[in-house]
């Protein structure tokens, strides 16, 4: 684990909108609106594909970090593609009300990687939260072939709850607000939200059970015991697959990220041997602050610098 190294100076200037153009990418889920950034440095034949987290936001975010990152990577010779998932922003198709980590949008990711491959480039997938899990799932799957040259996973959750449904970390006021009669009625009327409520209540029961009977909960990190019960088998299997394919991987967490603490706990148990086997192929960088949500400009800069430094050192031309 390391803090981000200094970024090697880019051979080209950061891109601007003058170096960008929009394109629609046909996917089984709908036509996806992508914004393509052309390399301003000497082209490497690689395209960064940026996958954002879940939520009702366009592909410029979170907090416009995908725009900043794409334009900076252009200076290092990477083209970049940021796109909106189906049903979101300018993309076509129908979006889901509830986004689940065990159902990543691999069809969307695959369509964009195929489009990039058609342009003669390999993809470096850079995902945030749900986007990181989608990138990992796609890269581990059979459709990826040799089209993925690298993976930067920014604050990926290592469990399979629905995104932003880590119940034991929600303040009680959050649930009180959501329990208003009007909202409850809206949930009960909608089949998808009813199913989500059932999953939430089951997860509540599981969390409460773990707190009442701590002996049945996950082993403390320091003991190197069994895998935490919440550790996603899918996450482990996907990471195993990309390590077997020798794809370079970067993990980025914030020092204050609960997801980072989860990762460290998993690393002390089931993930440890896999990461040890991967050796230098997998890097873990921890930056100050909280990367999930990126609600601090300084943390955004640190995250972007970490990815930029990794991309430059992993794929940049050697002097």
């Amino acid at each position: 684990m390391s803090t981000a190294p200094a970024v090697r100076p880019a051979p080209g200037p950061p891109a601007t909108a003058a170096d960008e153009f929009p394109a629609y990418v046909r996917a089984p889920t709908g036509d996806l609106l992508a914004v393509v950034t052309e390399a301003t440095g000497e082209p490497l034949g690689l395209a960064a594909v940026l996958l954002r987290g879940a939520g009702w936001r366009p592909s410029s975010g979170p907090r416009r970090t995908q725009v900043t990152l794409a334009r900076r990577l252009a200076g290092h010779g990477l083209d970049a593609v940021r796109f909106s998932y189906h049903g979101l922003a300018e993309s076509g198709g129908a979006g889901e009300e509830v986004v689940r980590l065990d159902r990543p949008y691999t069809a969307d990711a695959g369509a964009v990687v195929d489009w990039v491959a058609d342009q003669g480039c390999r993809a470096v997938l850079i995902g945030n939260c749900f986007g990181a899990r989608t990138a990992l799932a796609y890269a581990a799957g059979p459709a990826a072939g040799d089209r993925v040259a690298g993976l930067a996973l920014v604050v990926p959750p290592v469990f399979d709850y629905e995104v932003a449904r880590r119940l034991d970390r929600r303040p009680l006021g959050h649930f009180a607000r959501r329990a208003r009669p009007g909202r409850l009625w809206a949930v009960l009327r909608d089949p998808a939200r009813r199913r989500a409520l059932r999953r939430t209540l089951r997860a509540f029961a599981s969390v409460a059970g773990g707190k009442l009977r701590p002996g049945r909960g996950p082993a403390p990190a320091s003991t190197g015991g069994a895998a935490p019960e919440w550790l996603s088998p899918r996450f482990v299997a996907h990471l195993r697959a990309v390590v077997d394919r020798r794809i370079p991987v970067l993990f980025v967490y914030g020092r204050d990220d609960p997801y980072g603490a989860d990762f460290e706990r998993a690393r002390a148990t089931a993930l440890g041997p896999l990461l040890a086997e991967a050796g230098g192929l997998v890097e873990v960088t921890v930056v100050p602050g909280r990367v999930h949500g990126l609600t601090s400009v300084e943390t955004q800069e640190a995250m972007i610098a970490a990815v930029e430094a990794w991309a430059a050192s992993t794929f940049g031309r050697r002097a």
Partner: protein
Amino acid sequence: MTSRGGRRLARAARAERVDRGLGIREEVEFFGAPERLFGCRHLPMDGPAAGAPLAVVICPPVLADFGANYQREVRLARRLAAAGLPVQRFHPRGTGHSDGDRADLSFAALVDDCRAAVERLRETCGPAAVALVGSRLSALAAAVADGEGGSPLVMWDPVPSLRSYLRGGLRARAVHRVGKVGAAPEGPDDQRARTGYVDVLGIPVGPALLDAGDVPVLGEAVAGGPRPLLLVQFAPGELTPPYAAAAAAWRERAIDVTAAVCPCDESWWFIPDRRAPADAVLDTTAAWLAARAGMTAA
């Protein structure tokens, strides 16, 4: 995009999508110079609607509001296009995919960008009239951008003033930091002295906005005269005192005000984890604009 062999592919100036289900076309492009704006036009399927009786420019809000309102604006645009009204959306400078530094965002630039979007819509569609839809701070910018134009104007949950808007942002910043364990309690003034901006929930707000002195308050932002105006309040209950006062001031100046309360579970400065309901906002706005165009909303 350039392959490893150095082959640079031809790039289209704009991307197009046809949605046969909705009966619309969408054109996405960068426009303007020297700094370029990201824009999307939503058009009826049957052509550019040259000479349409009315077209609409949606002026998005900025800072944290930009993402919060995004999907609502897309849904409105698609609905209006399906009803036969061309719509232009855009990202202001320093926001979204457009050029510009976030910390350089200013009210004057926001007004200029609204005007640039109107101009782009006129170039491409040549409508008889252009209506403006603005939310939060951009509602004031849309009003100023139109000036004496007398265009139909829709204001979604407008801020009463820039001062009150920034106060809300600073309150949200303070609340956010209270919840942080071990966070350095750096105040906004100290942070500004150190960095040149105030970090409001991950968005740098610079002096161009913090010190802007020429931003009218809500009641004064709209030029007088016979123009139709729809004010949409997102909070439930009676019209809030600032909105009631603004509506009264507008009516005194012969502005034809329609005030609507469309409860919408929107927290603005704080990020919700799912889409806020907006059907009442969309229904009300689409019907009002269609009536201005002498059409029926889809």
